[in-house]
């Protein structure tokens, strides 16, 4: 078991290394640096000026060395300004001398760099944004997982029954509705003052405000979340993932229900309710556990879409901003977080599967 985990962690570290290098490579391609130089310096730089700016600010030199600097295994760059003799460098605060500053400053030292667009440490930006996204994800999961499991178990306990057919069709419908479609439909139906349900309800005097729900989650960031401003984003994320988990649960449940021991229990005269709750349910929930864990990376895309659609300044929103503003260090940090989430959930799902399933654990 220990060897298995160790090997998985090793592969994971290698994957993370490769992926971060790919992101580093793509974000540090010359056209990107050129654009950065022009936005930081001035827009009408000549090619020679761009080249010298890039060199002066530590973006020159071989890619692999700069990746090492960013990772924190190669000493950060240092340059003395030929005009005023001031030292500039990756690890230097303004006014520091090379002796005072640390030699290494990179990911391993916990230094994520400086966001050129927001003018702030990347670590400060990412922390707050991740917290906001964490709240959103938590509620999305709190809605999605129980309802998906319920739908899946209900559908799978009698395969081919009418309930199975209708719930399965529902699940297929939910997997066919990506976030940007369901979000749009929800907003029109529930959060528009001119269309959908809100005008009718408001005319009847059943709701106080002009709309049933708020079509933007901006207020959730400042005034705290409530039913009014957070329902639609949470529902939108939960809906798309729900169908998939439900279908996996259904398949797993249906398979368990055909097992020998269930038939034995039936022949013994155990009631159907007890068979489902006591005998089938626990075994049927092993496979969905993996699926739920692997949903995290999928949710990441959903989070990006939903945060953009509902104007919620979380992690996904930051990623979009960083990518469209060419904010290299911030984008790198975002991708680190994304890659980390994906790999850790994969690891948890692998290990958890082994723990949950005694058949695999023993062999």
């Amino acid at each position: 078991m220990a060897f298995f985990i160790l090997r998985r962690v090793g592969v994971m570290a290698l994957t993370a290394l490769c992926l971060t290098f790919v992101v580093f490579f793509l974000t540090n391609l010359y056209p990107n640096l050129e654009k950065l130089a022009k936005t930081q310096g001035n827009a009408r730089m000549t090619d020679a000026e761009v080249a010298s700016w890039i060199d002066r600010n530590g973006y020159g030199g071989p890619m692999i060395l700069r990746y090492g600097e960013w990772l924190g295994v190669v000493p950060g760059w240092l340059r003395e300004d030929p005009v005023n003799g001031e030292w500039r460098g990756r690890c230097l605060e303004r006014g520091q001398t090379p002796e005072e500053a640390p030699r290494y400053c990179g990911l391993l030292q916990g230094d994520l760099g400086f966001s050129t667009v927001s003018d702030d440490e990347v670590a400060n930006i990412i922390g707050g944004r991740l917290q906001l996204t964490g709240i959103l994800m938590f509620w999305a999961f709190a809605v999605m997982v129980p309802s998906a499991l319920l739908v899946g178990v209900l559908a799978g306990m009698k395969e081919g029954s009418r309930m199975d057919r209708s719930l399965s069709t529902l699940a297929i419908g939910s997997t066919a509705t990506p976030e940007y479609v369901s979000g749009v439909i929800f907003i029109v139906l529930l959060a528009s003052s001119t269309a959908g349900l809100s005008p009718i309800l408001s005319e009847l005097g059943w709701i106080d405000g002009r709309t049933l729900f708020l079509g933007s989650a901006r207020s959730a960031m400042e005034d705290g979340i409530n039913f009014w401003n957070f329902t639609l984003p949470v529902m939108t994320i939960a809906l798309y993932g729900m169908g998939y988990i439900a279908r996996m649960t259904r398949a797993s449940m249906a398979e368990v229900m055909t097992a020998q021991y269930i038939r034995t229990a039936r022949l013994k005269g155990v009631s159907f309710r007890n068979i489902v709750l006591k005998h089938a349910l626990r075994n049927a929930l092993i496979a969905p556990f993996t699926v739920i864990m692997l949903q995290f990376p999928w949710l990441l895309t959903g989070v990006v879409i939903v945060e953009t659609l509902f104007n919620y300044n979380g992690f996904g929103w930051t990623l979009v901003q960083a990518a469209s503003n060419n904010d290299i260090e911030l984008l790198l940090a975002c991708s680190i977080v994304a890659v980390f989430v994906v790999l850790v959930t994969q690891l948890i799902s692998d290990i958890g599967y082994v723990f949950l399933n005694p058949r695999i654990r023993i062999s």
Partner: protein
Amino acid sequence: MEPLTWSGDLGAFLNPLMLAALAVFVAGFAANFLMTLAGIRAGEMVVNPDHTLSVRRTPVDYALMAMKYAVLLFVLCCVGYILGGALLASPETSGILGGMAARLTPVWIALVILFALSITFKRKLGLYGKLFDSPIGMIGFGLVMFWIFTALFAGMVATHGPIDVISQMRNELPGSPLPSPEDGQYTWYLLGGDNLGRDVFSRMVYGSFEVLKIAPLATLFAFMVGITLGLPAGYYGGRLDTVITFIANLVLAFPVILLFYLLVTPEIVAAGVPNYLSLVLFIFPLLFLVVLFNSRYRTQPPVRNVIVSVVLVAGGLAYLSLISDASDPDLPILFRLWPEALDLFDIPGNLLIVFVSVVFVNSPTVFRIVRGIVLDIKTRDYVAAGQTRGEGPWYIMLWEILPNARGPLIVDFCLRIGYTTILLGTLGFFGLGVSPESPDWGSTINEGRRLLTIYPHPALPPALALMSLVLGLNLLADGLREESLKD
């Protein structure tokens, strides 16, 4: 001129019927649900002493029957709208729904012919024919074919051009008449105008063509890549498998949205990254076809030489035309080497990028599926028989294993087209799509969402269209899976 109403004159008659059907359905559903909770069961068949069968109906049966007839009535009303729209010439009497149904006449005719032919000959059509035994599969197939025919007949169905702007029609509501219609111009914007004054209905119709142009082809390419890599990885195993699986996992561990942003941003496009990717990815279909025919006709060299050389010349020409574009001076020199005279077609830059990124994202998943199936199938007896006969490994992979893996692959193909459609929509939603004024659904939703709470009508039709197409593909896949499992 008066704006159109939604249902026109037919509405006075059909709307109450539809509402009644809806009410009966909801009531039936509620009654059914409550009675099931209360423990009342549906009636069961009873074998009488004289060997006849009888069913004693319970209230649950009646509730179910009411639901069934309500659905039937609802469908009949929809058919009424379609027929009414087609028969009543002017949208003024048949309303917006009728007007749209009338514009879609070629699609209805094609659908009816297709279904009539398929159902008549379904026993001779293999798996495709069996699809018509499953209601779910038929509905899915109908939805998919509806959009395919709409895309094919887009020129006849659409009322206006996809980028024709009439500035007075900006954000006009559905059914608004044109301010000063010219001769021969359709007099209304059936689903209203968007924020630039373009016709929402026509853009949705042309959008179906944009989507269906890319999604199936990109999925096909992803399958070729996945199959070409997955077969040897599963069959040989060992170090080859480890390496390819690791690379596939790398791509899979990448969050899709980040990958898109990294591949599609202008700076990275300027560095030629998508072009290098296309260089690598598009060689796989060529490789696939060459190996496919080579392994089949290896024992008959004359035939083999002819077929393989034809594939090589045609495929090679297509490949080189696809990846190179001598007229674009921004590309790296590698992609401008191929002479312009032999360059059969140029793909507009953005289209190629979108295409490549979608293929790139999809192929690792296909690879994993193929690899899994191969690992399962390679232990079968017929594979061992082939090996004993002295067949080459590629013959066994492509002509023994692959045909036997077709069931799950076809099902996954349908699902994956739907997924690709969603991905394309995501790209459009973030404004990374084919081009800013392209009518594809993702871009249209993106444009419409800015004023969503005030003017919902521009964003809603493409959203529903995308949903129905993906739903159709998923249902089709489900039907196919069910029917192929029955064997």
